[in-house]
């Protein structure tokens, strides 16, 4: 079997947890055009290549016994942002993916509740937020536009997917079936 184009670089990125979206050329185009070839190539190595419905690529995560510290930090960071957008009455996806953000105007330390939540994952100040954002850049969820300015990329949809998964678990508060027909 001939190795697909750029397979080494693509593997190195995906295996580190990175996501490949249109910002990652020429790898994204190669994956888009030959998804089946790459998927078949990585499968015997134990890596499941995922093509997200919003058109980006990543390796399916394993289910480790111990969760690395970075994952809860990323999750809390993202959930706080979503909570803030929801409180403003904004359409969440439009709000997060349709605009640029400044670190200095992030809402994470604007409420005592957020500060308390962030403290639980050892995020205490703006420098800690910057470290999370740098990590998000490494995994392809974010692009820096300047020293303080950034925007979220398409793979941030992984967070929305997780939220939808959580809210679709019956809790009694909201209807459990998001695909229910319109009234």
């Amino acid at each position, binding site marked *: 079997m001939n190795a697909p184009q750029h397979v080494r670089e693509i593997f190195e990125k*995906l*295996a*580190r*947890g990175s996501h490949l979206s249109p910002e990652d050329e020429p790898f994204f185009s190669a994956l888009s055009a030959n998804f089946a070839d790459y998927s078949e190539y990585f499968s015997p190595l134990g*890596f499941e290549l995922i093509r997200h419905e919003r058109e980006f690529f*990543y*390796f*399916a*995560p*394993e*289910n*480790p016994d111990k*969760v*690395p510290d970075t*994952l*809860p930090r*990323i*999750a*809390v960071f*993202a*959930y*706080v942002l*979503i*909570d803030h*957008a*929801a*409180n*403003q*009455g*904004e*359409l*969440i*996806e*439009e709000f997060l993916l349709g605009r640029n953000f400044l670190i200095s105007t992030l809402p994470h330390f604007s409420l005592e*509740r957020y500060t*308390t*939540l962030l403290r*639980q*994952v050892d995020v205490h100040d703006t420098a800690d937020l910057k470290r999370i954002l740098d990590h998000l850049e490494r*995994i392809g969820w974010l692009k820096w536009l300047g020293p303080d300015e950034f925007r979220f990329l398409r793979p941030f949809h*992984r*967070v*929305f997917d*997780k*939220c*939808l*998964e*959580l*809210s*679709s678990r019956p*809790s009694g*508060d*909201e209807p459990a079936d*998001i695909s229910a027909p*319109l*009234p």
Partner: protein
Amino acid sequence: MHTGELSEGEAFRLIREHAYSHEELPDTTWRRLIELQILVPTEPGSGLYLLAEPVGRLLTYLFDEASPTTPEIVRGYIASLETLGQQLLSAVETDNVTFVGLAFAEINNSLRRIHADLGETQRAVQNEVAAFKTNREQISVRDRYRRIVYWMERFVGPMVEIVRPDGPMAAVFEETERLLRIAREQSLFNDHPALERNLRYLRLVRQHALRVFQECRRELQPLYESLRRSSFIAAGAALALERLLHEGISKWGNTLVIGLSSLRVQSVPSDAAITLILNRVITHPPEPAPIMTLDESPERPAALDRRLWLDSLPTDLANVIPVEDLLFWLSQHYPGRTTAEILTGFSRLFFDEQFVATFSEAGEQDYLMADGALRGHSLRLEFA
């Protein structure tokens, strides 16, 4: 616009807030509002006032505000048409021309009201959609979602059911049209323009109603879907944060984080390290392999002799137990052993599980060994 009850104090506050000039005193404005019956008391002698209904309607028209018609109102119109149809039929059968004429007029009024109310409902939906899109009130996404669900469930959904081609409104309209035609053919009533007007309105309202609510649905649906999705996303995030707040990070586990692939490459030697090791092996100078002596030695090694002596001690002691002074016994029975060996033997017996040791009452004793002397208290040993 304030459409509810208003106290005198509230009215004065509004007058002062919206005064265009200071030429007219608030008292004068208030007096005129009462005199012109723009504000009317809710009941005689009441301190609460309402905006007069005709003025309210005028303002609604001027500000292009609209109230949606409820499905119950439209059902009421339909029921009214059904009753009128029966009355019309009865009037035709008895040749009561006056009653036929009145029924024609009332049918026309009902159809015009339905037409007007449907138009107002459409405007109300459009205004609401615009308000949702701009979100001027800054309400949370979940509240916006609940409000739009209310609109869909309260107005648009049930109304579509009423006005659809196989719904109750179409059935009543068909029956009304049939009765109007019977009236023309069988009665002496000959106001043909009134008949044509009613038939025209029946066609118009039927087409208009379906179009209005399909448009309403089209207006609301994209917003409804995006708000529903946002609401679910917000609910998921809120749930995760709530659990973090109440249960702590230790309970989060894998379920609340977003999993990432992470290939573990720790402690794997680099290519350079492997090359270095191989070089060391390749360039290592040759040396003869160590030679092992396989012949049996004629003499017993000292360590083995010592091991065997220590192992034999419990058996030797068991024959003479109890022993009043263990160290004295050892030094006497094994005079050739060094002090170190005697003390090792002492420890071996002291910790042996089949014996128990106790200090005797005698004072300090001196013990002579092959290579020195020891001073200590005597230790009695007996079976445990």
